[in-house]
């Protein structure tokens, strides 16, 4: 196996395991906020690892840039989404 492939394999596996961890957290954790935390951290890290793992497989710089772009977008949306959810949970608890 070429070193690049081994690198890919390693990171993709790690990413997949993080996805699993995120979902387990979602299934197991008792309250909304901790579930949210588990989900956003694990999934984004997972996606990040997969993107890093796939970078050696790219045949051009643009393709690599697009991969990084996907990850950046995920960061942005995850950050916003978790803040929005957390805000909604907070409002629900304290009342308007």
């Amino acid at each position, binding site marked *: 196996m070429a070193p690049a492939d081994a690198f890919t394999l390693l990171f993709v596996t790690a990413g997949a395991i993080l996805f699993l961890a995120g979902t387990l957290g979602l299934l197991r954790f008792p309250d909304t906020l901790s579930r949210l935390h588990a989900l956003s951290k694990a999934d984004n890290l997972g996606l990040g690892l997969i993107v890093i793992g796939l970078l050696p497989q790219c045949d051009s710089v643009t393709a690599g840039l697009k991969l990084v*772009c996907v990850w*950046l*977008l995920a960061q*942005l*949306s995850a*950050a*916003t989404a978790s*803040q*929005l959810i957390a*805000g*909604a949970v907070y409002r629900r608890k304290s009342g308007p």
Partner: protein
Amino acid sequence: MTLLLDLALVAWLLALALHIARVRDDRNAIVAFIGFGLLLGLGWTRLASLDVALTEAAIGGGVTGVLLLRAEAHLRPGKASGASVSHGGKTLAAIACAMVAAGLALAVLAFPSPAPTLAPAAATALPSTGLGNPVTAVLLAYRALDTLLEKVVLILALIGVWSLAPDHLWGGAPSLRPDVVPEPLAYLAQTLPPFGVLIAVYMFWVGADAPGGTFQGGTVLAAMWLLVMLARLRPAPETRRRSVRLVLIGGPTLFLAIGFLGFAMAGGFLAYPESIAKPLIVGIEAALTLSIAATLGLLVAGPAQTAPGR
């Protein structure tokens, strides 16, 4: 392995559809529908239709979703569940629908082999359009009349939506304003649009030769515009404004004008002279992208809710 993947996707899609059919709460169903749209986008890549995958993710998972969510929020105060269909009626309907599905499944299985296809014909004709993406060639050259009429359909839907405003508000601005804009959303509405516009331009630009094109780019633009309006960074424009209407009709008008020019330049309606076919098509696409973005955005925004200023 790919077989397993396909099976999993199909099973998942059907489970989501059943969830949508059975769940009581409308909003739950709509969230599931958005998920369904995103997943269906994935499914289309398995059918090797990346153009459709992009469209489905954008329209099915994005813009339709926000339209339905807004409608649900609008209708929520009056949640009086209507008289449901009787149990017997439901069973009967279920049997009838199952029969339709089964008949359709048999028809799908009975498709002839080898499958009839226009792929070779499309490939042979592709060089004379100067394009590299056959789907774009079908949409803007071989079957350009379909696309042109479909643009009129979009505009007409918008006219229909606008006509639902009360008389004194007609011509005014639709209102997308929520009562509160959560702060993170304002942040998202500021950071996401530059990304989105970049992606839209890219989608439109690669569309001539690779999956993508005017619909996908237009939808992304529409979504970004909606986001800006939703976060109250910009108000929705008055529908009677000349500039709004000119953007709306710009794409179809250019399309139609070049179509008529074809009588003079290429011997027929919607025919392009071979030497400048590609620039003409890309020009039409550019104008259409803007028009689609404006139309989709205004369709989601709905009829006017504030009276036009004098």
